[in-house]
């Protein structure tokens, strides 16, 4: 059995930041990821991030990913790729992993579950046809693997993911015929909507997809208007000839490991649904088990990085590598940055939801 002080499950922005923060103080750290390459969602984010200079403003997600990876390499942190963590035992102290084909266990004093998020499905007649896929899935295919899932796309959902992925599909050469949004208004940033509107993409609020049809794959999408109660209005159907329907109706935390090791959860829809309870230092109800990033509530990559750092600081403090006072100072700096990211009408909702969660954790 492998032994370490700090095992980080998931090498996305939260995991990378936590590993860097902890190992910087001397904590023996292992970073584990099931993918062939680390970086999580960062390598799909080819757009420039908002924020201030400390928050990597105007830097593309992919470049933030590259920088973090270089730092991890420089710090000599052990990274295990192509390694699935399929179980967590012994009161949150032992990870069961499959490294390639090899089964192993890892015992760690502190564990961070930074496993990110999964896209929500949306069921409608024809949704199982090849050609219907998640917006994040389309983003992965195009930005990571350079393959377009199709050339005529209907985007379902006008939150930031729907709007950004629509833009990125256009950049890759696809034609986005429309974005439909069930709510009466656009949920994402106005600037993201404006970008695609001036590229000729209509955004139909108060509309949803009624049906996907085609022989063995998507050939048509029927869109219908819905009233304020969410009921479809008969007679308002419109057909679009498309080969792809992207579903962008939100993400939820990928929190199975937290669940099976006995962490308590709460349901907060603003954060994506069932979220593991955690303190403001990111510790769950299982002592020594932390969560950070999307798994702790769906927010931005910048928040994920800061939550990772909060975890790294607390782990370093618990293991005696930094003093309580040093930890306090660092924690307050990080929390100030998070508060800044969560300011404004979009962020406030999330900040308030997080406060509720931390309160429930007690």
């Amino acid at each position, binding site marked *: 059995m492998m032994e370490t002080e700090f095992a980080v499950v998931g090498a996305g922005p939260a995991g990378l930041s936590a590993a860097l923060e902890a190992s910087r103080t001397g904590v023996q750290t292992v970073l584990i990821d099931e993918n062939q390459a680390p970086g999580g969602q960062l390598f799909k984010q080819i757009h420039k991030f908002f*924020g201030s200079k400390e928050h990597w403003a105007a830097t593309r997600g992919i470049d933030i990913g590259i920088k973090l990876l270089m730092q991890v390499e420089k710090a000599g942190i052990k990274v295990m790729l192509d390694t699935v963590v399929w179980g967590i035992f012994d009161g949150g102290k032992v990870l069961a992993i499959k490294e390639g084909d090899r089964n192993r266990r890892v015992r760690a004093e502190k564990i961070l579950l930074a496993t990110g998020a999964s896209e929500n499905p949306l069921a409608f007649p024809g949704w199982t046809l090849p050609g219907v896929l998640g917006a994040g899935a389309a983003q992965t295919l195009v930005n990571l693997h350079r393959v377009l899932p199709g050339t005529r796309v209907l985007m379902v959902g006008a939150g930031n993911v729907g709007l950004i992925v629509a833009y990125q599909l256009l950049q890759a050469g696809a034609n986005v015929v429309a974005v439909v949004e069930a709510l009466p208004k*656009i949920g994402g940033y106005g600037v993201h909507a404006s970008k695609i509107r001036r590229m000729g993409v209509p955004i139909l609020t108060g509309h949803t997809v009624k049906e996907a049809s085609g022989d063995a794959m998507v050939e048509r999408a029927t869109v219908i208007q819905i009233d304020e109660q969410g009921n479809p209005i008969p007679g308002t159907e419109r057909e679009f000839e498309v080969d792809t329907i992207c579903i962008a109706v939100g993400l939820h935390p990928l929190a199975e490991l937290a669940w099976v090791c006995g962490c308590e959860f709460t349901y907060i829809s603003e954060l994506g649904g069932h979220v593991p309870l955690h303190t403001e230092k990111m510790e769950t109800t299982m002592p020594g088990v932390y969560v950070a990033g999307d798994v702790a509530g769906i927010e931005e990559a910048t928040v994920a990085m800061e939550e990772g750092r909060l975890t790294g600081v607390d782990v370093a403090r618990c293991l005696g590598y930094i003093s309580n006072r040093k930890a306090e100072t660092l924690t307050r700096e990080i929390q100030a940055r998070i508060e800044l990211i969560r300011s404004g009408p979009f962020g406030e909702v999330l900040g308030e939801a997080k406060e509720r969660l931390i309160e429930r954790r007690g």
Partner: protein
Amino acid sequence: MRESLSKTGVLTKEDLAQSPGVPSEERMERGPVAYIECMEEIPCDPCEFVCPKGAITVGKQIIDLPVLDEEKCDGCGLCIPICPGLAIFVVDKSHSDKEALVGLPYEQLPLPKVGMKVYGVDREGKAVCEARVVKVLNPKKFDRTAVVYLAVPRAFALDVRHFAFMEEEE
């Protein structure tokens, strides 16, 4: 969010008239100047830092909308590629008595060629006039956000914010 913006994704002329980032008519007639179409409170401030003349102010409360000092601004256009929302442009109504220049961010391929005739496209994606490409900038420091300057008929200087090729590109 602005009523219209959240319903349609498009800022109206009325909205923009209230924006602290939009220059006066008089200033646009004098020469190139930034035209900032950022009207939502999102924590963000790279435009303030990139401006070499200190003409853009966001301030410590980085959710505040950027304020343009039109006298300090010389229309250099460095703010165009830095904005993560691609919401900053440059307008120059002094270009000629028939035409105005509009500088806009562009992140697609192919890049247009200088001299090309294109359609000037408005915020709703409608081609509203013919335009001519007069400058294409894509230096490394713009980090892959190219800036395209179009000569448009003066009447469309406040409408054109994008362009469309006239024929199928090879």
